[in-house]
């Protein structure tokens, strides 16, 4: 049961981070925490021998690839908008959207 508690705690931290942060990077880390908590469950609660561990390898390799892509995107976004604050970026996009509509 220890692992269930650990993954629950990780899930809790991740959700807390998602709720309180608007920095894209922190949001990303929170999401990774949640995903890792899920992977932990996969491994520890696997019923047939070896399958959970096999999934762990699969999950980690895809996770790493996804992280690479997301981090690259984050760099582009923060360079383009000069900030990595979700609220500000959404605000900018919305301002841009309304101004485009006005032109049409």
């Amino acid at each position, binding site marked *: 049961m220890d692992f269930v508690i650990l993954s629950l705690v990780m899930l809790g931290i991740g959700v807390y981070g998602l709720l309180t942060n608007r920095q894209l990077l922190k949001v990303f*880390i929170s999401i990774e925490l949640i995903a890792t908590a899920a992977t932990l469950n996969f491994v520890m*609660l696997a019923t047939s021998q070896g399958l959970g561990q096999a999934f762990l390898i699969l999950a980690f390799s895809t996770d790493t690839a996804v992280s690479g892509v997301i981090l690259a995107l984050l760099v582009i976004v923060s360079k383009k908008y000069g900030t990595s604050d979700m609220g500000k970026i959404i605000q900018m996009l919305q301002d841009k959207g309304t101004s485009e509509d006005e032109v049409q």
Partner: protein
Amino acid sequence: MMLEEFSAWLVWVIPLFASLFVPLIGKYSDKARNYFVVAIAAVTAALALSLVPSVWNGTGQALTTGSVSWLPGISAGVYIDPLSVLFTCLIGFFALIIAVYSIGYMKGEDGLSRYYYLILLFIGSMIGLVLADNMLQMFIFWEMVGLCSYALISFWYKPESIRAGVKVFIMTRIGDIALLAAIGILFLMFNTLSFRGVIDGIQTGGFNMDYMVIVAFLVLGGAIAKSAQLPLFTWLYSAMEAPTSVSALLHAATMVKAGVYLLARFILIFSVAPTLISALQPLWFPVIAWIGVLTAIVGATLALTTTDIKGVLAYSTVSQIGFMMAGLGAAIDGAASVGWFASLFHMVSHAFFEGLGFLLAGGIIHAIGTRDMRLMGGLRKAMPISFALMAIMIITTSGLPPFAAFFSKGLIITSVTDTGNLLQIILLYATTAITFAYVVRMFSLVFMGKESEHLQKQHVHEAPRVMLVPAFILAGFCIIWGLSEPLVASFMHVNLAEGLLGAFMNIETPIFLSLLIPTGLIAYYTYYKGYKGVRNVAAGKNPLSTLLNHAYFFDDAYNLIGKGLTGFSEGLTRVENALFGRYPDNAGTRVSHAADPGQATTLKRGPSSSFRNYVAAAVVGFILIAVLMILTGALGIGV
């Protein structure tokens, strides 16, 4: 036996594999890329058709489940039976239609390599979904079609398209979670993921009845979200931000039918145990039927009020899928019931007439550059061919004999009548009357009357031939599909009690036709004689128009939930700042809060240093957890 297995693999592997080459070919020549996609779609359609003879001559059971081991205990395979082949043929056929149509409709757009890549990826995933022989494979493809839908809705990178794409993705995820839970419970019970294994498990009786009922309801939850049923139907209207060709393929003909496929497949699986079917009879089937009936009438009434031409077709789709659900809910004796077949038969005829509607709407939008029906009118002179085809579409949609929906919708109403729920029957008849009203309204607003000022300013032209030919083919199927009912029944290995002529003879037809007369009269007086009564009710401020203009307040309710969550998280942020505000990272937050309330964090220390720290922390965390898991796994320490 070998040949079917071979083409059943190729039919979804080829589009998936070919999708990778689309960007490469697009680098050299746009024209070559377009024809490449058409060729792949044609090959897919041909392979799908090649599955038909063996199923036709078979016994109606699954022919083969050739599978390849992937991970220990998990395999990938194909499951060939009438249900999956029916869907495969429909998807392959529509893939070809849309690939040809896209050449005309998407001409000169930016990012077409991305568009065609996603279309091929979608075709492969959708066929993979219906041909999968195990639930994990089905779920992977189930998610992939959702992803393609999201990416194609946001195709034009406009803020509202992006918002619509995200909304669709999140709303359908609710159902995905339910489906995943159902798969998990089934795996725990039978220790297998394959359909064949589950069927064997149910046949031997080694299952817990209460759990099976829960599984059935979770499956229903997955189908509701994917097929845009109450209460999660609002995403389909938002999905109309997609290019019209995508709406025709994903949001009318194939992807939204995934929920219907899922329910039909699981009813087929549950049917092997009569005790299980009788356990599901008191609650599960009536719930499906009620969801279907209520969605049908809600969708039809909303189609009556929207001014967006694609919105009418979207709500019409919602309403027609409601009919299919009502048919599945009437299948209380399992897959042998008329309702099961009626639902699938209507599924195909709906794909034909709704697809035709979308193709024509695409031509109209292409010609005049707006989706607002109030800016249209009098198009019959400028677009005579679209006018004639749209007439076929509205006759089919409203279910007039002898076109496709007359037989399929009639069969659904017959099957619901057999279950004897009077209120459901009345609501279904009311829906058919409203269906007639909304298609006539759309037709009148777009093609009849005087040309609007918006149209007089521009030169309106008929859609190009490459867009009209697919529409002609679909119109042909609208006419002949209903008459092929006995052939389809023998293909599905279903025994229908009444023949083709029976549809004209039974009691439902006169009731249904007599209902159309008052509706038609109201429409005639409103749109041709200028009678103001209905318009005043629609434009005025009364409970009915408020309810319809807000789409029954479903989206408002979801927004309230969203607002509640945002408020909760903002409160939590404030608590965190109050408690931990002295730490360096959050100090920046506090300073900027003080300077400019409502705006969050500016990074004071420069992005690069904290960036590296965070990544380092994440990597260390990853490594620690990985070491922990591998160690405990190697030492055999279980939970």
